[in-house]
């Protein structure tokens, strides 16, 4: 087990190294970040001054080292616009993003898991077909368009819900549904296939042979085991939602990390865009590492075969 953790951690460190190198290279290959940031018609002296201020006139390897140092000290450079460390801005917004992501995860679980369960228990029935349609629409309806339509119907026409901003639970409903929609479809498919696999297994046959009532077989023996991969995916989705809910946060004026990234794009604040991207990558690599270790802990086959 110890060996597995060490090897897996090494892989994650390599992944993070390549990630940082990629982001660093892209920023410098695609043109001068200073000209990207500066307003049109800026004087050359000003450009040079900004360049020195940001250390962009130093050789690339030196720049890369200070970039990595910035990551390790957790500062990630200063936002051009806010004149604050990017990490400070990121962690200021993190609770808001977490709130929205938790609500969206709840929505996706509430839609995806029961629907997937019914589809699996009643395979090829009317319910299963309905589930397939929902799964297909989950992929096909862009979440941000769903958000716009929700605003149109529930805020503009019916006037039941506030259109945007952060406040009580009513502010949370529409963004959570719009964000959770896509993930609900993914959870539906996973619940269905995982449940089908479990229902085919030997211990389910045994439980039925013992003469247990069908609902006990499904609820106690089947469902419980089918949920492990489902909750893993929900957990990974949660981290993705925290970092990637850009459009939903923009539409609903939700002060989260996605909106921070959007502000970064709009104000040509390249340290902000770079920093948020790096932090999103770090967060996801770390969560994947934790999930892998937990899985290996639960299931010895994983740590022995890899």
């Amino acid at each position: 087990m110890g060996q597995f953790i060490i090897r897996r951690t090494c892989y994650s460190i390599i992944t993070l190294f390549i990630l940082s190198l990629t982001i660093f290279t892209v920023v410098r290959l695609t043109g001068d970040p200073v000209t990207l940031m500066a307003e049109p018609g800026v004087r050359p002296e000003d450009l040079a001054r900004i360049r020195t201020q940001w250390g962009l006139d130093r050789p690339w390897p030196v720049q890369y080292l200070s970039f990595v140092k910035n990551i390790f000290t957790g500062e990630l450079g200063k936002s051009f616009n806010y004149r604050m460390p990017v990490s400070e801005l990121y962690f200021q917004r993190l609770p808001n993003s977490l709130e929205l992501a938790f609500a969206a995860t709840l929505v996706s679980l509430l839609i995806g898991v029961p629907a997937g369960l019914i589809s699996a228990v009643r395979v090829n029935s009317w319910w299963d077909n309905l589930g397939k349609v929902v799964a297909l629409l989950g992929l096909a309806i862009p979440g941000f368009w769903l958000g716009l339509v929700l605003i149109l119907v529930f805020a503009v026409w019916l006037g039941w819900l506030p259109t945007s901003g952060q406040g009580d639970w009513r502010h949370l409903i529409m963004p959570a549904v719009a964000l959770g929609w896509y993930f609900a479809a993914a959870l539906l498919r996973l619940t269905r296939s995982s449940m089908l696999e479990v229902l085919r297994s030997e211990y389910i046959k045994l439980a039925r042979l013992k003469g247990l009532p069908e609902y006990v077989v499904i609820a106690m023996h089947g469902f419980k085991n089918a949920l492990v991969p489902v909750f893993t995916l929900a957990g990974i989705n949660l981290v993705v939602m925290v970092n990637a809910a850009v459009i939903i946060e923009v539409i609903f004026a939700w002060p989260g990390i996605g909106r921070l990234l959007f502000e970064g794009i709009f104000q040509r604040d390249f340290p902000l865009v770079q920093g948020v991207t790096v932090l999103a990558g770090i967060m996801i690599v770390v969560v994947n590492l934790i999930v892998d270790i937990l899985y290996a802990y639960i299931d010895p086959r994983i740590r022995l075969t890899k």
Partner: protein
Amino acid sequence: MVSTTAPTVSPPVEAARGLPRWLRLVRAWPLLPMLILVPLILVALCADVIAPYDPIQPVPGAKIYAPPFWMPGGSMHALLGTDFQGRDILSRLLFGARVSLIVGVMGTLVAGSLGAALGILAGYLGGWVDQVIMRVTDAWLALPALVFAIFLATMLGPSMWNIIIILGLVYWTRYARVIRGEVLSLREREFVKLAEIAGARRWRVIRRHILPNVLNTTMILASLTIGVVIIAEASLSFLGVGVPPPQPAWGSMLAEARSTLMAGKWWLTVWPGLCILLVVLATQLFGDWLRVRLDPQLRNL
């Protein structure tokens, strides 16, 4: 229906063979996705001819924010209404279809060929090549696709061809991982071993024996990712880092519609979204059909 040249006494199979090859293929194609995709492709190709107005010039004499024709205030001149500059929405949708399809197809093509090439190299050559390619794949997969695409788009600047390259760079990793896995098992198969023993060069083995065997998987992946790429393009255009205005794209049309959503001008928001929905739905259905057709093992899933 049946070809007249078919012999009078023939088993049913022979009769079916009498049909031209392309017609048999068409008859086997799935109806629903084709009903959406074929008109869409035609519309995208002939947008210049079909579109009633110039998509970037206001309709002469039309009001701004004219509603669709059946509503009070709407006119038959602009069937689906006009936008904030008085431009015809129908024409913009038709030209937007072209952008969506070009980006969807080209982006998938870039991602697919890059991913398949690197996946084959990693799987077949193994060793440090494999290590390098797979570690890069892991790292690039770690970023959420949209965040990575936004980052690249901010750095490269907005244009349609940049978006194609960006989406190719974001989505190739998925292909590389799957195809490497396939190649790892192909490499152990006898026909590959025999070709190697017979003295075939690596390049020949890859071209003659590996590539044809991973093409099916690549096609299935491609048909399933076209929709994802189209939504990604719409998302980038919505955020203002995609296809730059005034070129009509469904995503930027949605962005322009945001400011008037509160005023209840629903047609500006509903039409472009419905277009995205239909296209993605059709490509998904087509992908599912292709998957079942090309890979019988997957039929039970």
